[in-house]
C-alpha cells in the first residue's frame, strides 16, 4: 500500500507510449548534418563569400519565419530548425557572389510565399526553398547566373560548356573536379561528392526517402544513358549529368521534402523517375542549362495525382 499512498504525479498521454524518438527538430538536425559536408566543401571551394551567403540566407529565413509566426499569432516554432534547413538549401542554389539583398529577398520569399502563406510547415504544395529560388531566377536572371557572377575563378561551368562548346569540351573537365565541386554552379549544388555522401547517409538512416532519390537518379541516368548510347558525340554521359548542375542536391534534398512528395513507395519512385526524366528533357530541349529546380517544382505539382496510386486497404471488400 505504501507505493499507492505516496503521491506521484503521473503523466497521462495517448497510446502508443513508446516512440521511435524522432521529432521534427531531430529530423531537421539530421538533415543539417547531411548538408554539412557540402557546406564545408562550398567554403573550401568558394571561400568566405559562400559562408556569407549561407549565413545570411539562414538567418533571414529564421527571422522571417519567426516574424510570420508572430504576425499569425502562432506559437514560435523556429526551434525546430526547419527554417534553417530551408535557408541553407536555398543558399546552396545561389552563386557564392550573390549580393546581400538578393539572398535576403530569396529567403524572405521562400519562407513567406513558399511556406507560411499556406499555413506553415508541411502544408506547402511545392518545395519551400525552390519557391524563393524560382522567383529570384525569373526576376534576376543575370544575378542568379553563377557563370556571370563568378568571374574570378579558374573553374568552368560544365553545363554551359555542354550547351555551347559541345560534349568534348564539357567532358574535358576531369571527373574528380566535378566530384570535389570544382565547377561553377550554385555554391552548394555543385559539391557533388559531398552531397552524395550526405544524401546517401540520410537515405540509409531513413531520414529521406530512398525511393525518391533512387527514382530521381535513375530518371536522370536512364534517358541520359540512352541518348549517350545513341550519339556519344552529341550527348554527355549519364555520370556527367548526375554530377553537374543541382541534380544531386535536387534528388537527395529538394525532391525528397516529404510534405510535397507522395508518401507510398511506388508513387515515390515514379515521382522520382518523372523528376529525373524532366531534368534531362529540360537540359536537352529547354532554354535552361540546369533543369533540376524547375523539374522538381513541376513534379511537386504532380504529387496529388501520384498519391491516387494506392493499394487496397487491409481486408477491404472491393466495392
Amino acid at each position, binding site marked *: *500500500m*505504501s*507505493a*499507492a*499512498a505516496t503521491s*506521484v*504525479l*503521473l*503523466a*497521462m*498521454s*495517448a*497510446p*502508443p*507510449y*513508446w*516512440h*521511435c*524518438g*524522432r*521529432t*521534427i527538430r*531531430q*529530423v531537421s538536425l539530421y538533415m543539417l548534418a547531411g548538408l554539412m559536408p557540402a557546406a564545408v566543401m562550398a567554403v573550401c571551394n568558394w571561400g568566405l563569400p559562400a559562408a556569407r551567403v549561407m549565413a545570411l540566407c539562414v538567418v533571414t529565413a529564421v527571422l522571417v519565419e519567426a516574424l510570420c509566426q508572430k504576425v499569425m499569432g502562432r*506559437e514560435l516554432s523556429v526551434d525546430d530548425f526547419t527554417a534553417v534547413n530551408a535557408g541553407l538549401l536555398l543558399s546552396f542554389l545561389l552563386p557564392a557572389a550573390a549580393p546581400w539583398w538578393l539572398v535576403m529577398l530569396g529567403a524572405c520569399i521562400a519562407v513567406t510565399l513558399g511556406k507560411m502563406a499556406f*499555413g*506553415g*510547415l*508541411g*502544408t506547402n504544395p511545392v518545395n519551400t526553398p525552390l519557391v524563393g529560388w524560382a522567383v529570384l531566377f525569373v526576376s534576376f536572371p543575370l544575378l542568379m547566373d553563377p557563370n556571370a557572377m563568378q568571374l574570378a575563378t579558374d573553374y568552368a561551368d560544365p553545363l554551359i560548356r555542354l550547351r555551347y562548346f559541345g560534349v568534348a569540351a564539357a567532358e574535358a573537365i576531369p571527373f574528380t573536379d566535378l566530384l570535389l565541386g570544382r565547377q561553377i554552379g550554385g555554391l552548394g549544388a555543385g559539391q557533388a561528392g559531398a552531397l552524395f555522401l550526405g544524401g546517401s547517409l540520410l537515405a540509409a538512416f*531513413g531520414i529521406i*526517402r*530512398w525511393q525518391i532519390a533512387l527514382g530521381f537518379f535513375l530518371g536522370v541516368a536512364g534517358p541520359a544513358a540512352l541518348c549517350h548510347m545513341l550519339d556519344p558525340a552529341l550527348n554527355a554521359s549519364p555520370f556527367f549529368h548526375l554530377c553537374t548542375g543541382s541534380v544531386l542536391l535536387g534528388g537527395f534534398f529538394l525532391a525528397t521534402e*516529404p*510534405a*510535397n*512528395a*507522395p*508518401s*507510398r*513507395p511506388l508513387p515515390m519512385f515514379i515521382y522520382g523517375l518523372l523528376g529525373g526524366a524532366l531534368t534531362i528533357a529540360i537540359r536537352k530541349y529547354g532554354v535552361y542549362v540546369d533543369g533540376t529546380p524547375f523539374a522538381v517544382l513541376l513534379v511537386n505539382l504532380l504529387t496529388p495525382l501520384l498519391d491516387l496510386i*494506392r*493499394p*487496397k*486497404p*487491409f*481486408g*477491404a471488400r472491393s466495392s
Partner: protein
Amino acid sequence: MKEVFQMLNDPRFHLLYGVTQRFSTGPEPQLARLNREGFKLVEGVTRKTLVHPRMRLAVHPSPLRGDAFSPIFGRISEINERSIFVEAVEPTEEQRQAAENVEKNRVDLLTLPERGAELGMILKGLGLNTRSLGQHCKTLIINALNPDPGVTWAEPMLLTHLDTLKAGLEVLRRLSPAERILLAVPREMRLHHHDMEVVHVPSQYPASVNALVVKAVTGRENPDGVGIVGLHNVWSLGRVARTGLPLIETVLTIGSLEHSGNYIVKEGSTIGELLHFANIELKNGDTLVRGGPLRGESLDRLDRSVTKGSTGVFVVEAGTIPPMQGHSPCINCGACVLICPARLSPGLLSRNAEFALHERNRAEHIECCLECGLCGYVCIARRPVLQYIRLSKYKLAQADAAAKLEELRSASAESAAASGNASAAQQGGA
C-alpha cells in the same frame, strides 16, 4: 529486404525476447478492486460482507462473461457502479472453513460430458470469458505471439508452462465448434508438437495483431470462418482445467525501462502494489500504462487494478520518449503511411478526425484500421494519431447507431400509420 529498409529498427519490436523463466507469483493484494460494470451482485454480497478466496461476488447476464470472484480473504469495503473493493483482513475460522469448502468442490473439466455452449456455461461459472474461445468458426487460430512489444509472457507460456497450455487445449477442443485448431507461433521458435497443429508466423511487431496473424496463417485478409483467440485465454482455460477451481489469477508482464518480469497475479490487484512488489519506483512525470506499451491505456492513479484481459503493466519513464505537446499539426511527412500495416493514410485520418470530418474517414476505409499504434510510434510531430482514429471510429459508430434508431423509428411510425389507415378504411367501409 523489407526488414533492411524499414524505419522500425527498434529491437524491442522483434517479439521474441528469449525469456523462458517460469512465471513468478505476484503479491497477495491488500486491496482488490474488481470490475462490476454490467455485473449483478450475488445475493448477500453487500458492503462489509466477509469474503474468502474464490467466493462468487457477482454474475454477468451474458453467457460469455465469466463470473466475478473474490481473490482474497477480506471484507468488502465499498461497492459502486463500476467496482467492488475488497480489503484484506485476517480470516476468521468461518472464512477459512468456507475457503476449504471451495477447494473441495473441484470440477474435473476433462471428465465432464458437456460440449460446446453447455461447457461454456460451466466455464462461465468458473470465471472464464468464453467469447473468443467458443466463437463460431471452422478454423480457430491461437495467437501465441506476444501481443505487444515489451510483453514477454508468450514464450515462457509456450515452453515452460506447456502442461497448463495442453490442458487448456484439451478443454478448448471440447468447447470450440472449430474443426481445426492451429497454434500460431513465432517462426524462429521451431516448435513442433505431435498433438497440436503448429503454424509458424513472422514475429516482428505488428505481426501479433490478430488480423495479421490470420493473414499469415491463411494467406487471406479477413477470411470468413476463421476465428482467433489469444494464448492468454488458453492459458486461463488450462489453469482452470488443472486446478478445477474458479479463475482468480492472470499473467502479466510488469516492465519499466530496466526491469521486466512475468507474474501470475491475483485479479483485481492494484497497480501500486504490483509495482511495489516488482521494485519499480515511480517518479513524477512517468507514464503508467495498463496493457501493452503500444496499445494500452495510461492511468492517472495507482489504485487502478488489473483484470483478466490485462497483458501488462508498464512504466514509461519521463524523458525516455519525446513528450506530446498538445497542439501539433500534421506535417505530411508520410512516416505513418509507410509504416501502416493496413495500407491506410493515418495522417489523413487523424486530420479529418481533428476537424470533426468523421464522415470523410469512411471513404478512407477507417474501418480497416488494425489499431496497432505504429502510426503514433513513428509520428515525428508526436500527434496522438491512434487516439484520433479511435475517436473517429467511435463517432462513426455513434452516428450509425443513431441512424439505425431513426430508421427503426420511422419504419415503426410508417407501419403504425399504415395500420391506422387500414383500420380507418375498415371503419369507413363499415
